Each structure stands twice: as C-alpha cells, then as structure tokens.
C-alpha cells in the first residue's frame, strides 16, 4: 500500500513540476527539487484530486520531503478506510 502511494506521489510531483522521470525519488527533499511555496500548493492540489481527499492546511504546511508526503497521504487514506475523523471529500 505504502509503495503504491509513494509511486503515485513521485509521479504527481514529477508531472506537476515538469521534471524528468527518475529525478524525483522517495528520498528527495522539496529543497533539492527547488519546490517553492507556490509549487507546493499545486502539488497538494494535484494530490488531493488524485487521492480524492482533503489535506488540512496545518498538515500541508509541514510537508518538506517526498517521503513525508507519501506517509501523510497514506495516513489519511488509512484513517478514511477505518472510518475515522478525516473529513469526507465533497462530491
């Protein structure tokens, strides 16, 4: 499950940032990838659409590495699967 999520996150960051395939790895940091605050917004937007979930503002702000992103998404997906408090996506 985590591997699938991680691969999707890597793919989304690669396409959103228009980077060459292979440049983004699970261990990349946003700093290394030159992802600034506006880029971060675009990436979070693309992730929310892809996984059909909402990433709360306070959690989104803390993400600075690809691994953190994948772990956060995974946690949100798991809490949704368990019917926990994660707010349901609209539509």
């Amino acid at each position, binding site marked *: 499950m985590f591997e699938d999520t991680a691969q999707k996150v890597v793919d989304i960051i690669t396409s959103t*940032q*228009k980077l060459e395939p292979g440049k983004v790895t699970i261990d990349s940091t946003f700093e290394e990838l030159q992802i600034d605050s*506006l880029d971060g*917004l*675009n990436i*979070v*937007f693309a992730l*929310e*659409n892809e996984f059909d979930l909402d990433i709360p503002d306070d959690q989104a702000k803390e993400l600075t590495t690809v691994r953190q992103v994948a772990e956060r998404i995974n946690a949100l997906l798991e809490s949704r699967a368990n019917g926990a408090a994660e707010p349901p*996506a*609209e*539509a």
Partner: protein
Amino acid sequence: MSGRKVVVTGVGGICSLGLTAPAIWDSMMAGAVGFSPLPTFPQGTLRLNLAGSVQGFPDGRIADRTLDHTDRFAQFLLVSAKEAVENAGLAKEDPRWKDAAVVAGSGIGGEVAHDFAFWEMYGLKKPRVNPLLIPKVMANAGASHVSMAYGAQGQVYTVCSACSSSNHAIGLAWMHIQSGMCDLALAGGSESSITFGIMKAWEGMRVLSAETCRPFSKNRSGLILGEGAGILVLESEESALSRGATILAELAGFGMSADAAHLTLPQPEGAALAMRRALQAAQMEPDEVSYINAHGTGTPANDPLETKAIHSVFGDHARKLAVSSTKSMHGHLLGGAGAVEAVTTVMALQHQIAPPTMNFVEPDPECDLDYVPNAARPMPIRAALSNSFAFGGLNAVLAFRTYQA
C-alpha cells in the same frame, strides 16, 4: 507641460493578426481581418460567436512552469515585453532595470483562469479550484511577471480603466520618465477575455456585431472582441542616446479626461478635451497631426461622437487628417486596445504609412472624415494621436511624433 523628452525605442505586440509587432503590421498592410467563429463552449450556446482570438499561442516563448503560474492575459504581456526589450536592444544586465517602471493596463485581469475555475466549481461541481487562481486572476499579475522577468524595481503597477487602461498606463509611464522618476519603462497592456461568461455579458449589452467590425461605415453593427497585448519600451532621450539605441518615435504628450456624464454613452466634449490636452502636453499644433488611430469601435454610438470630437479639436484641419480604426482588423482588445494601437501608431510613424479601416463599405453622413478605407496608405506622417475612450466616460489620448534630435 515641460519635462524631459520621452522616446520609444522598442515595440512588441500580439493579437489575432500576428504573434509579433512586425507580423501584426504585415497583416494590417495586407488588410487582413482577424476574426473567426469561436469553437463551441461546454457551458452553453452563444448568440454571437465571432471574435479576434489569438491562434497558435502559447508558442514556446514562455517556460512551462511560468505558463502554469499565469493566466493568458499575463502570458500575452510577457511575450510582448520580451519582443519589445529585444527590439530595443536592452540587455538583461543593463543597470537601468533597477529603477525601471512597468506600467500595464488591464480592464479585467485573469479572466480565462477565473471563468474556467468558476465553471469547474459551479458547473462541474468540482470540490476544489486551482490553488493559484488568486495570483493568476489578479489584474497586476502581468506587470508583476514582467518586473520579475527583467528585475524592474521601479514604478510597477497596473492601471484598470476599462478600454482606456493601456493608454492611461502608457501616459503614466510617460509622466514617470518625463518627471525624472525613471529612465526606462515598459508600458502597455493586455487583455484576454474571450470566455463564455464575458461573451455572454457583451451579448447582453447588445454592442457585439454578428458579422464583422465596420468602424465609421454606415452599416456598422457593433464591435468584435479581440485579445492580445502591446508593449512600448519608453526611455528618456538621454538614456536612449547614451546607449546608442535606435529611436522609433517620440511619445510627445498624453491627455486624459472624464466625461462625468453617462456610464456607457460617450460624450464628444470629453473625448475632445482629452485630445486637446494631449496636444497641449506635446506642445503640438493641431495641423502638425496627420494621422489618428481612432478608438473607432464600430458601434453606432462611438463613431459619430469621435468624428464630432475630432472636428471640434482640429477645425478645418480635420478634413486633411487620415483617421483609421485598426479595430476593424484586430477587434477590441478592451484594456489591451490602447497598447496594440500605440504600437501600431509607432509603426505608422516608422513606415510613414497609415493603416486602413477595413470593412468600410458605406459612407455615413455623421462620419465624414477620411477613414483610410480598406487599403493602407503611404503618406507623410509627422505626428499622430492614438485615442482610447472607456466605458465609465474615461478618455486617454497619446500624442506621438517622428523623432528629431
């Protein structure tokens, strides 16, 4: 009005007639009319669907990531600025950029992004919108992106006065240089609002033509919306001479006025006042002017009013003027109109050719000037005006003359 002489050292433009200023000029010389039917919109049906859309854009002149961060109106401004700066021969390392101005007009701002995002929300019921919608939509985005592209840290802002936005912007940049606030300015404007929502709004005002734009022709039936941008590189004369720049023309004066009368019905007195003030600022006698790039929207209301205003300012000399509306070819760019028309006016001075009013088929007793109908005309042009009159009764007129040291 005294002050430093302001000269034009570069031009750039984009509209339905071409992706660069020379391409636009060539189209005008050929009498090309850049209108075509719009493709169908998913949002609904238009009653009138003719427009002057820019085809083949983006065209590789803007980096992919910048495209992601910008609305089409800012992209138009960026490519025009790039062209104008190259035309002026200004290097990115030039120390003038530090204090340079970027003054850009836009009547509406990032309407393409705005329309699409709201369609996704209201129409398609998507739960979230593009997170960069705010910085894409803000009307100053174009000026800001241009300032970032060149490191211009002087008077950078956007002017919003509907169809006069660009002329106001160019006029203000002229004032900044004239007064000594800066030596270099990129001035102009852009618009991109050929969206379903805005087309419906213009439909509702019942000023759009169903067939074509025929300024000053008796059977004129309204305006056609266009899109695009124009930029002039303005410099103080000393700045241009010191770096050996080619001077294309002098921006000699600027005049503005308000009708203070009606929200949408233009008044000849207001238009005349702006023209008089432009002449006065330029220290230009009326008979020095030989060409006017008219506001000339092709609406029943504008064209006789503009004719009347020109008569009142120029008296007997009005009959000797060549007056043309290039909106007959590129359509009405709204907040970007004055910019493309200022670029056109500079090229008219450079080439000594008056561009035509196309689609002119029937003289109107109320429009009795020489409108350069249907074919460009080589002629001596010492000085020229470019008129913009906006909804809200805001008028802005630029006065150019051939440069003389």
